[in-house]
């Protein structure tokens, strides 16, 4: 994006909310960083160029899921080359659109983490990886594509260690910087969910207004627009801008209608991991999901639910309780460094007591980062 800053919108305490840019009419002008063979550059030069151009923000660090500290020395870089989340874009397809950029991007990443680059792929997925990279195959349903789950099985994060992660689509953008010599922030975003007239990919630029993206794609009706998937995405509306990391926009019906005796009826059309609704008798049916909570929040009652959807050697309920108790030592022992909110999103989905699992995780991570 290039243009003229038209307005800066500030919120409370002069917090910057939006920077509105009037785009150049004559098309986007790019600052040239010069094409350079990655192999000829040093690690420092690569990082410098990424910082200068602005693509560094695509590199995240774990624990905590923050933008990586360029001074840090991570033990490895992890990239999950597929997305297993509900209605997620087909990353393999998107990589194929820019195979050279992806290859270059991986080359760059292989220089960052002490030369250790781990890639997670689906069985049968073909990938043009640098020779030094370690390729791991993950099968199974979501959250197999979450990089956190993959790290846990490849090389778990110990106390005082950091690793860096980059989302597969962001590797393309980093690749462009070195292969094309410019920072091009456009990407394919998947439009999906019942609220879209037709699921499709659309080419959009970070920061673009949502209404210009959703134009003609969003159905008329009472829908919730989500930047991201239904498990981890952020609620959004047409006045927002496309956020920096968004790969998919989901629209699903708002479920704000009460349901008469909903807990008593047979429930042939209700999605549940438990088999308390008769829908389990027809495993292949598809469901109309809305945003209804299907019940009220309660204390923890059921056990063994979360473990079914968390493929990690972690006892999720005990970890959550240690977070609620702000017990730093326990949180460490039970693996808080290994998780981010997204890894336990399915636990929140299946929870009988409707507990806000991701909120608790995020409080725990904040607490560890600031207090411990």
């Amino acid at each position, binding site marked *: 994006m290039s243009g003229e800053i038209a307005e800066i919108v500030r919120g409370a305490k002069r917090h910057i909310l939006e920077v509105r840019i009037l785009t150049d009419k004559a098309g986007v002008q790019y600052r040239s960083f010069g094409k350079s063979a990655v192999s000829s550059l040093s690690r420092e030069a690569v990082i410098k160029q990424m910082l200068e151009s602005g693509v560094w923000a695509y590199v995240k660090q774990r624990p905590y899921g923050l933008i990586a500290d360029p001074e840090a020395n991570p033990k490895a870089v992890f990239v999950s080359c597929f997305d297993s989340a509900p209605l997620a874009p087909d990353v393999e397809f998107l990589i194929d659109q820019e195979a050279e950029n992806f290859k270059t991007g991986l080359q760059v990443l292989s220089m960052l983490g002490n030369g250790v680059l781990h890639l997670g792929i689906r069985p049968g997925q073909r990938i043009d990886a640098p020779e030094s990279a370690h390729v791991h195959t993950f099968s199974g349903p979501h959250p197999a594509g979450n990089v956190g789950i993959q790290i846990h099985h490849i090389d778990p*994060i*110990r*106390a005082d260690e950091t690793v860096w992660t980059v989302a597969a689509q962001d590797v393309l953008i980093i690749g462009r910087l070195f292969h094309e010599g410019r920072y091009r922030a456009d990407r394919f975003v998947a439009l999906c969910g019942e609220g879209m007239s037709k699921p499709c990919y659309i080419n959009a630029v970070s920061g673009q207004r949502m209404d210009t993206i959703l134009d003609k794609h969003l159905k008329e009706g009472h829908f*919730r627009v*989500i930047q991201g998937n*239904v*498990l*981890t995405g952020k609620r959004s509306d047409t006045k927002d801008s496309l956020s920096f990391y968004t790969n998919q926009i*989901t629209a*699903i019906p*708002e*479920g*704000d209608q*009460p*349901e*008469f005796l*909903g*807990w008593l009826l047979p*429930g042939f059309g*209700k*999605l*549940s*991991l*438990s*088999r*308390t*609704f008769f829908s389990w008798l027809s495993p292949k049916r598809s469901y109309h*999901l*809305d*945003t*209804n*909570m*299907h*019940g*009220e929040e*309660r*204390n923890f*009652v*059921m*056990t*063994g639910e979360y*473990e079914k959807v968390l493929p990690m*050697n*972690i*006892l999720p*309920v*005990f970890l959550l309780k240690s977070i609620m108790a702000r017990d730093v030592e326990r949180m460490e*022992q*039970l693996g808080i460094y290994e998780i981010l909110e997204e890894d336990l*999103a399915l636990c*929140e*989905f*299946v*929870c*009988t*007591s*409707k507990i*806000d699992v*991701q*909120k608790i995780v995020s409080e725990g991570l904040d607490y560890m980062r600031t207090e411990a």
Partner: protein
Amino acid sequence: MSQKASIICVPRLNVLKLILRIHYAILQKFLASIKPPFAKGGKLEKFHPAFDAFETFLFVPGHTSDHGVHVRDAIDLKRTMMAVILSLFPPLLFGIWNVGYQHHHAFGMDASMMDNFMFGLWRVLPIIVVSYVAGLGVEFIFAIWKGHSVNEGYLVTGMLIPLIMPVTVPLWMVALGAIFCTLIGKEIFGGTGMNFMNPALLARVFLFFAFPAFMSGDIWTDLSPEAGRALVDGWSGATNLVTFDGNYTHLQSASDMFFGFEQGSIGETSVLACLMGALILIITGVGSWRIMVSVFVGGYLMGLLFNLVAPGSNPLHSMHTPAYYHLLMGGFAFGAVYMATDPVSGAHTSAGKYIYGFLIGAFTVVLRVFNPAYPEGMMLSILLMNVFAPLIDQLVLEQHIKTRLKRA
């Protein structure tokens, strides 16, 4: 034939849906009309939890997710509790019949299945009603007082209490037990999910120690007089649990005990009915099969061990009782299926569940054999293991942390 049936069925279903919809509309209007005084700032604001309980009982609220995941699993605690109540129907229905059967049997009468059932129904129904009214009363008072929503846990507890009472129990005692367990067993700890002991068993153990005369002896069969009839000769009010301590060979046959044609608490006698309930709990995923299986295994192995070390000089000693009899006698199956599996008061970790269940089974048999003063060892050993469950979990947790450290 089947085509015809389906043709009749379809309009019926539609009529049913229509009726539901009309009810729905009327109810919603009614609720909306009486809501304002209960809302925040209203005159009856204090009573909002009570209103809320009724409203959410009728309608799953239209609340939508605000942060975190945008879609949620359809299950909630009400649905979970419904599944448990559904699973309690086999022992309940059999128990009602058995109350009538035992009564008529004691008087040497040959009653029809319906007569037995109706006799039982009039004895059991008041106990159920009293149990729910008393317990839910406490729940509502606490909800209003503390301003939290009414917990669903009592829906199950209220049904469990009658099933573990002798049919002759006075109604005021049922009420007392229900109030005690809700108050002392649950609410003072913060309600469902915070209690550390199984509330229904707490009600029973409270009555057991507070009113021993009403909880043991010839109390298991309703002996209200029948005109012109006397008790049959040689009728005994002793349950198998009492019998086996004296001479185990006088026990009823294994098949009688399996099907439940024996004296005992209302819902506990039929192992078959409990197993049917267990099937529902396991299929729906609500009850832990780990706990159920390990309770049975624990009891069986302990029975076998006793068989091995039983004194040869006394061939009638209760240690000689065939091990599988322990699984059929008394409330063993009922406790294993419905009481030990309480997710709140039991062990929470998977490994812990095996240990917890095994100890319950084993300890029950120990109590039955060595402490004739407390014939129903099941109740006491579940409560004891409720207390130990956090400790078991702690041990599992420490082991878990060790393996995590080793890997990391």
